[in-house]
């Protein structure tokens, strides 16, 4: 086993699938010789050639169209959107076209496309680079939306995403790319899409989170432990579809829950989780389910982001409200 950062694990997953399946193609802006602006595709063009790992002209919409067309000729495209803030330029290809391809062709054309993209805040990017837009994707029937929080999960989930017969949006939190290393098997393995993972067991409160917020939640859980609260942290890993079984099982065990997301509060993933808990497990609850989110403003400029992003302290405060309700 090797110690890998999340970006190395992502690179390793693509390498694995480029080796396994000659129909896998990796492309996007600067992903070839340059290895991607974050080096996620480092060395892949050298190893697999320009036919399979290649740069595109600068045009997100065109990249989406390319992926759709390539899938129609039997390829399994892994397209990169350089920063997920640029996704609006390719919304039609993703939500308007790819997500409904299987449906509008009566089941004939599925779109086995993986859309990889860095997102998330805390790394002082310019405007329109850091937004958490997973809710936008999750609102579109036909898409699966995956967000890993660890190097181990990142590799297994990306391999599953590439092998999936339907379009998968795979979002990589920029702050997690190199923040820590973890043991990651060099051989191939998969983690099923749509399955959450209990990152920390507990009995008094469930925290549901994903992406960078898993780590803030774990920090909060540790602090709360010192104060005598046993807190469970469930990493959703796939935000659409949600792992309802895991969510409900955890709520039934702890009887209290909060949901944490880095995105703004309005119309988000956390709201979906709360709604599902309310519909399915309200009689198990000892307290209202509360959310920890960013405020409903535009994502702030770099110097202001740390004041805006939810953190462990915010999580602790909300957790205590629910624990003492």
């Amino acid at each position: 086993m090797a110690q890998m950062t999340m970006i190395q694990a992502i690179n390793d997953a693509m390498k694995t699938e480029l080796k396994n399946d000659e129909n896998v193609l990796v492309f996007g802006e600067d992903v070839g010789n340059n290895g991607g602006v974050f080096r996620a595709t480092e060395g892949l063009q050298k190893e697999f050639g320009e036919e399979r790992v290649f740069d595109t002209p600068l045009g997100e919409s065109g990249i989406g169209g390319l992926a759709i067309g390539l899938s129609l000729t039997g390829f399994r495209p892994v397209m990169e959107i350089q920063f997920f803030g640029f996704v609006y330029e390719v919304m039609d290809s993703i939500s308007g076209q790819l997500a409904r391809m299987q449906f509008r062709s009566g089941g004939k054309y599925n779109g086995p496309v993986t859309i990889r993209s860095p997102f998330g805040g805390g790394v002082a990017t310019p405007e329109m680079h850091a937004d958490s837009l997973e809710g936008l994707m999750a609102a579109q029937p036909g898409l699966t939306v995956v967000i890993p929080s660890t190097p181990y999960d990142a590799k297994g989930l990306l391999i599953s995403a590439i092998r999936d017969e339907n379009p998968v949006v795979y979002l990589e939190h920029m702050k997690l790319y190199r923040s820590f290393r973890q043991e990651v098997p060099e051989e191939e393995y998969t983690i099923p899409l749509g399955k959450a993972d209990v990152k920390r067991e507990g009995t008094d409160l469930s925290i549901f989170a994903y992406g960078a917020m898993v780590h803030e939640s774990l920090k909060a859980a540790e602090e709360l432990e010192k104060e005598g609260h046993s807190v469970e942290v469930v990493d959703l890993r796939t935000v659409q579809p949600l792992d309802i079984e895991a969510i409900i099982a955890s709520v039934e065990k702890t009887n209290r829950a909060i949901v944490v997301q880095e995105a703004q509060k309005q119309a988000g993933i956390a709201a979906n989780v709360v709604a599902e808990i309310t519909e399915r497990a309200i009689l198990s609850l000892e307290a209202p389910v509360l959310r920890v989110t960013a405020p409903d403003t535009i994502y702030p400029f770099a110097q202001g982001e740390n004041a805006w992003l939810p953190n462990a302290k915010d999580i602790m405060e909300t957790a205590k409200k629910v624990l003492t309700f």
Partner: protein
Amino acid sequence: MVIVHSLQCLTAPIQLRILTSVEFVSINTTMFHNTVDKGEVPKMAAKKDKQFDPVKTLQEIEDKFEMVQILNEEGEIVNKDMDPNMSDEDLVELMTRMVYTRILDQRSISLNRQGRLGFYAPTAGQEASQIASHFALEKEDFILPGYRDVPQMIWHGLPLSMAFLWSRGHYKGGAIPEGVNVFPPQIIIGAQYIQAAGIALGFQKRGTKAVAMTYTGDGGTSQGDFYEGINFAGAYRSPAIFVIQNNQYAISTPRDVQTAGKTLAQKGVSAGIPSILVDGMDPLAVYAATKDARERAVNGEGPTLIETFCYRYGPHTMAGDDPTRYRTSETDSEWEKRDPLLRFRKYLEAKGIWNEEQEEKVIERATEDIREAIKEADAAPKQKVSDFINIMYKGELPYNLKEQLEIYTDKESK
């Protein structure tokens, strides 16, 4: 049965500037097909008095885009050098398809008015642009149609009954049969252009000798995806053919409002791809340009942009568009004189390979086929929510749809 408008009122020949074959070749091989090598610095102007004149340069480029015509309104070959010299058999087949398509249009409009068809975008007037361009394709080529391009799908193998189901809004209308290389008609103007670039790149990577063929209209050239599509295909030199059916109006918006460009074909220059403007009411010009584009594409010479200058006689769609709000009957009759079927009929009759009897037979066959296809469409099962759920994903359904499938299946069984 009168299927095409009369030519009685024809006065002076319409002025079309025709490129000689020499100019045609020069457009194809030199002017718009240069390669920019990595890091190449543009050539410096030699003398001060030859410094770049942006206004003149534009004018020179625009002037190059003269419209190509081979068969005039009288059914005479006016450009022998470019005559594609189709066999008699092919000429008859092309005429047959155009007549058939005109009947399909007339019947579709009438079925729509009777409430027996749904969304329909009329095609009359555009037969040369649609059918003659398609005629240059092979079965293995892949078509990405716009919503008006249903005839090309049919001639590429889509059963007529499915076209009707698609029009009515039945999901089975999009379930393209195996071996028919078409995508369901595109609704989002321009999206088909970027997808065509993708299919073309796929063919290129697989070494398939085939092209991706896509269609948009004059309005479509204003969309960003139009440029991204031709630019991506150009950058990779992929085998794609991009057709602009310039029928003069995007719903009601006239062509002049779309762009400052004198022609739409010249937009290909910005992407560095060979581009040509043809008389879109002339089946031979459309066929010759498409055939040439296809040959170059499968020979690894990259994509081509073709503007077919044409007209739709009918409304934008049958959903309430009233062309009298934006066109005059004078304009209509000017265009009717250029009708593609009339001129092709004259040409074929003069050759002695077409007559009224043959035409009547095609009309009868089309009418009968349409009747049968409507019957088939009528027999399609009523759509259920469980059908929709089952075509959402390939493989296992996510939990939300699994639950909803159970609920709807139960409801539907009662």
